[in-house]
C-alpha cells in the first residue's frame, strides 16, 4: 500500500481479525478466551516467545495469514516474515501489504 493512503475500515478490520486469528492458532494460549488477550491491541506487544510460539507455530501463523489475506492484502514474503519478532511486527508487515 502506498504511504499515506487510508485503508478502508472494513478492510482494516478484516486484516486485524485475520492476524489475531492466525496468532491465536499458532499460540498454545487460549488468547480469545482470556479477557487480558482477547483482541489484537492487547497482544500486540508480545514477542512470539512470550506467546510460546515455536518456529513451527510461526510457520503456521504465516501460512494462515498468507492463505487468507487476499484480496485485502498481498501475502507477506519470507524475507519480511523472517524479521518479525512480535505481533506488532506481523501487523505492520500485513497492513503494509494491503491493496
Amino acid at each position, binding site marked *: 500500500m502506498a504511504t499515506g493512503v487510508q485503508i478502508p475500515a472494513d478492510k482494516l478490520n478484516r486484516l486485524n481479525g485475520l492476524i489475531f486469528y492466525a496468532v491465536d492458532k499458532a499460540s498454545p494460549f487460549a488468547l480469545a478466551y482470556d479477557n487480558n488477550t482477547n483482541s489484537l491491541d492487547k497482544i500486540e506487544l508480545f514477542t512470539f516467545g512470550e506467546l510460546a510460539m515455536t518456529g513451527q507455530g510461526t510457520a503456521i501463523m504465516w501460512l494462515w495469514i498468507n492463505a487468507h489475506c487476499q484480496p485485502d492484502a498481498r501475502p507477506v514474503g*519470507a524475507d519480511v516474515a523472517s524479521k518479525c519478532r512480535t505481533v506488532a511486527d506481523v501487523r505492520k508487515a500485513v497492513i503494509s501489504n494491503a491493496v
Partner: protein
Amino acid sequence: MNSTMKLASLVLVLPLLLGTQQSRAGISLSADEAPVDPPWTQPANLSLIREKGTNTITADFVLKYRTVEQTRGDATYAKKGSYAIGVYLHRDNTADAQKNDRGIQVSYSGLLAPDWNNAGAVVSLGYSIKASTGKGLVEVEPSPGAKALVDKTKNRIVVGLGGYVQPSFAPGSVSPKTGVQPSIFFVDGGPSLYLDESRGEGVAGTGRLSGVALKLGLNFAPFGLEPLEPMSGLAVIPTFRVSAQTQHDISASGSRTKANRNLYNIEIALLFAKPETAVKKLVPSLTLSRSVGSDVLVGRKQSAKTELTFGVTF
C-alpha cells in the same frame, strides 16, 4: 523466537601451487551472504591441487532449486507446497580416498494447517515425497586379495507424513506475560514408506528393499525458545529432545534380507544467544546426543554413538 535465518554461501576455492613445490599460494573468492530465501541452496566447493606433477581434484556441488510456494486455503484449512530439484556431485581423485558420487533428487513437500479449535493444541501436518537416483564408488574384491572400485547405483523413493502437536495451556489457567518465557513442549513425527534399490557388479547387499517407518519425537524447552532480557552478556537456552524410530521391511530381493530396525536418540542442546533483536547474528550452539540403533535410509548399521557438536546458526 530464534528462527533460523537462511543464509547460503557460495564459496569457490582454487588453491594453486605456485613457484616451488614447497610453497603454496591460494585464491579464495567468497560471497558470504546470499539473498534471503533464495530459490537455490547449499554451498559448492571446487579444489584443484597440482603437486609433484599430479593433479588432485576435489569437487563438492549440491545445487538445489525450489519452486515458489503455492499457498491455498478456505475456512477449514490452509496449505502450501513446493517442488524442488537438486543435483549433487562429490568427486575426489586422491589415490587413497577416491570418491565419485553423483545423482539427482526430485521432491515435493507441503504443509497443512487445519482450522481446529484455536483454544486447543497447535497442530500441523507436513507431507513429502522424495525420489532420488545416483551412483557412487564402492570398493569390491573381484578376486581374493584384489581390490577394485566400481559404481554402485542407488535409487530411492520415500513418502512421508510429519505431524506436529503442541498441547495447549488450559483456557483460563495461564496468561502470557511480558518478559516471561513459558516452557515449550511439542511432539513431532509420523509414518513413512520407503523403497530402496541398489545395484552394482560385484557389490554386496544389492537388490530392493521396501518398508514402512514410524518416528516420534518429544521436545522440551523449559525456559522457552527466546533469550530473556540480559542479566549479563550471553543467554543460554537449553532444549531437550527424545526420539524413537522404527523401520519394518515389507519386502526384500536380491541379496538383501528383511529386517526390523530401531533407532533411539536423546539430545541436549544449548543455544547461546544475545538477547537483542538484531535480525542477523551469529548464534553458537552446543549439542550432546546419544543414539543407539540402525537406520537403513542413512546407511547406519547397528551402533551406539555419543556425539558432541558445536554449530553456528545465522
